[in-house]
């Protein structure tokens, strides 16, 4: 009775989930589990690091200014790793050893440089500074994907009935419905669906492939139920669950019905 489908149209794509899994396998291949026995594990990790942008050759004013800034929030700055960015400074020769000493004396811990010209590479390495690839500034990173995500991940709450022919979609979030879902109506969520009125229409949870999504309802009379693409039509619902308070979850490829306490 249950089949794997992409329910009605392009909304409930199974594709993102597939892609995610493929990507997961690739990562696993890059970092084999073997070194665990050798007492270490080498893994990639993204860390936020402060960047010190240098505009001109450092002088006494530079040292004072930097020390003052560190003094404004000593707990935050003291000993913090910092990358020195030479994008604005340019390709002029620079005494990396002295610069490193200076930054260290101000209370920061210089770990490397970025945006270095070809002629600056060897002196930088000789001074014990690693070469970092040119990256984006932190605030760009934060403003990009992070804020978009919080915008999308909101739970959708609706108190009016969902009428026949209407479709409600909670993208990347849960859907909470406080009134009836009429026959011929369709309620869809990437997360869970909660229905506090009678559920007579179609309910599609985990529409983007989340197999942990569930459907909760106070009176089950649905035309179709689907979680992560596995669905069941009303004919297939056992009579003992009809008009009952029920939660529906996914176990393997089976929709599991459970009466709520």
């Amino acid at each position, binding site marked *: 009775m249950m089949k794997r489908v992409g329910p009605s149209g392009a909304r409930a794509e199974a594709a993102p989930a597939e892609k995610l899994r493929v990507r997961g396998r690739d990562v696993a291949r890059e970092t084999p589990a073997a070194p665990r026995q050798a007492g270490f594990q080498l893994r990639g990790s993204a860390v936020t690091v402060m960047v010190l942008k240098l505009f001109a050759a450092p002088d006494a004013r530079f040292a004072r200014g930097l020390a003052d800034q560190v003094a404004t929030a000593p707990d935050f700055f003291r000993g913090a790793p910092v990358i020195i960015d030479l994008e604005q400074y340019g390709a002029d020769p620079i005494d990396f050893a002295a610069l490193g000493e200076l930054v260290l004396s101000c209370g920061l811990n210089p770990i490397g440089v970025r945006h270095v010209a070809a002629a600056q590479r060897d002196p930088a390495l000789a001074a014990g500074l690693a070469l970092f690839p040119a990256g984006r500034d932190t605030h760009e990173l934060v403003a990009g994907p992070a804020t978009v995500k919080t915008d999308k991940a909101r739970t959708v709450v609706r108190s009016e009935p969902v009428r026949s022919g209407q479709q409600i979609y909670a993208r990347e979030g849960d859907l909470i419905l406080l009134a*009836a879902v009429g026959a011929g109506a369709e309620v869809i969520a990437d997360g869970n669906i909660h229905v506090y009125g009678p559920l007579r229409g179609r309910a599609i949870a985990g529409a983007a492939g989340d197999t942990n999504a569930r459907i909760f309802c106070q009176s089950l009379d649905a035309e179709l139920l689907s979680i992560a693409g596995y669905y069941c039509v009303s004919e297939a619902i056992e009579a003992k669950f009809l008009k009952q308070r029920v939660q529906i979850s996914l176990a393997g490829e089976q929709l599991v019905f459970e009466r709520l306490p």
Partner: protein
Amino acid sequence: MARIIVMTSGKGGVGKTTSTAALGTGLALRGHKTVVVDFDVGLRNLDLIMGCERRVVFDFVNVIAGEAKLHQALIKDKRHENLSILPASQTRDKEALTKEGVERVIGQLAQEFDYVLCDSPAGIETGALLAMYCADEAVVVTNPEVSSVRDSDRILGLLASRTRRAERGEAPVKQHLLLTRYDQARVDRGDMLKVEDVLEILAIPLLGIVPESEAVLRASNSGVPVILDEKSAAGRAYADAVSRLLGDQIEHRFPAAQGKSLFQRLFGRTA
């Protein structure tokens, strides 16, 4: 301020036009200046039920196209001076109506009349959407059977999303349920849905229950709105519905053989 009311259902043949004629006449009888507007372009019927089909010269489409003035197209009812009819065109189709034109004409009517009743065509296409577009209130005409109830549910969804009030984010269109062609014997046999079942599914206030009646067909054929047939149960039911539309709290009358318990249960939930 005029009340603009759309008479709608989604499904055809449930009694929209009969109900428009009855409620329109009823409102006029109570002294309110009322106009009934036929939106069923191409299938003009309201003029027949109102008994004024021989007096149609210009119509709604002519007014929208600027080929006639509103007053040339409005027909004054011979029985009630408070009542007017704006007939549909029989030779055109729904595409002849435009949103701007409908808004303009309904706006003009709203300045002159207390009640503007828009008789919607069946379906959910242009004609039906334009009939509901300007509405402040909706009378959803429903028969006690599953397909009619489902279509009404669909229409309620459209009222919440495709009307001018919805577009402007104003207070939603006020909804009333008018249950027509109700046959107690068939309900008792289980052939028809119970009033309670319909109310449970649609969840909107009940304006009235109009029993299936021979008087309705008789009235339609003779061009006299059934509300004028005071002896018929249907006529009385429409008169009650008019009272409720005007804000009176009256109990729902039921056709014969009605248990008192159901009566009270029902009144309790809709009062």
